[in-house]
């Protein structure tokens, strides 16, 4: 019985170490490796905006701060919208600042969604900002961005 207790304590110490690990990661996050947005991203954003202002509000982008593997990073997007025929989200665009193709996907909603919500898994080529831009039925554009630190980039095969 005593032995079991000691072993438990060791297990806890190991777990504590693994729980503390993300803290050191966060310290590295004021990220000197962050690159400026790619020209491809800026171009895609300009085409999407088509002269309209993109305002930072109404959209919530839930993206892991730390992506263990860039091959699949699951994100969630919520937009504050009544989702009525008169006022709803028409399309949610996901844009990447550093992927070889800036647009990751487009999700077209209707008032029948009830809620402006979508979740999917994306590829991230490297540590970067991801943008979720919501296009409303009145044509206005709203966005949120989030940074994800990518431990292992998409497209590298480690066997």
């Amino acid at each position, binding site marked *: 019985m005593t032995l079991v207790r000691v072993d438990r304590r060791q297990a806890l110490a190991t777990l504590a170490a693994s729980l503390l690990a993300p803290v050191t*990661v966060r310290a*590295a996050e004021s*990220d*000197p*490796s962050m690159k400026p947005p790619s020209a491809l991203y800026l171009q895609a954003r300009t085409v999407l905006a088509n002269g309209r202002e993109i305002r930072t509000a109404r959209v919530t982008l839930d993206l892991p701060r730390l992506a263990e593997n860039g091959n699949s990073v699951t994100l969630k997007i919520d937009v504050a919208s009544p989702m009525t025929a008169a006022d709803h989200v028409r399309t949610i665009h996901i844009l990447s600042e550093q992927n070889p193709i800036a647009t990751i996907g487009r999700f077209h909603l209707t008032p029948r969604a009830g809620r402006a919500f979508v979740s999917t898994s994306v590829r991230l080529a490297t*540590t970067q900002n991801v943008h979720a831009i919501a296009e409303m039925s009145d044509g206005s554009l709203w966005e949120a961005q989030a940074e994800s*630190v990518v431990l292992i980039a998409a497209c590298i095969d480690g066997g």
Partner: protein
Amino acid sequence: MRAARKSYSVAVPAAACANKRRTLAVGVLLGGLLLPGALKTAAAEQLAPFEIVGDAIPLALDGLPGDAERGRVIVLDRTGGNCLICHKVPVASEPFQGELGPDLAGVGGRLTAAQIRQRLVDQSRLDRATLMPPYYRVDNLTRVAAPFQGKPVLNAQQIEDVVAWLATLKDQERP
């Protein structure tokens, strides 16, 4: 600082012993090089002879001068030395550095270039249980994959380049 030094000097006599055998073996193989038609792939022929004194290899491999800037690239490169998988270096632009080996910040202050060279070449001579791969050894290895057979992880020039860069890391502080 003293503690770090102490942990490095545990197995010095054994290392010195192993060294004599090694020097002999390398000499024999180098002799083989002179034979006509000697295969280029033959194991140790690529290795420069070296002598271990205490816990150090005083002379540069093949007498090559090291280039610190090239050494820095080798240390940081995943397909080169891939040192950051286990070690930290005082380079802020590299995220997620390793934590298995000693922090290399200040290594140039703690160790001489000759001591660093020995640890790169084959740390297992000082510490049999070490995780540090032998970067300049081709014998007594098991099941080496074909592309790497008979080849050290780094060649003599690369070892000297890495030694040169690590020797510049005198400051314990991290940027």
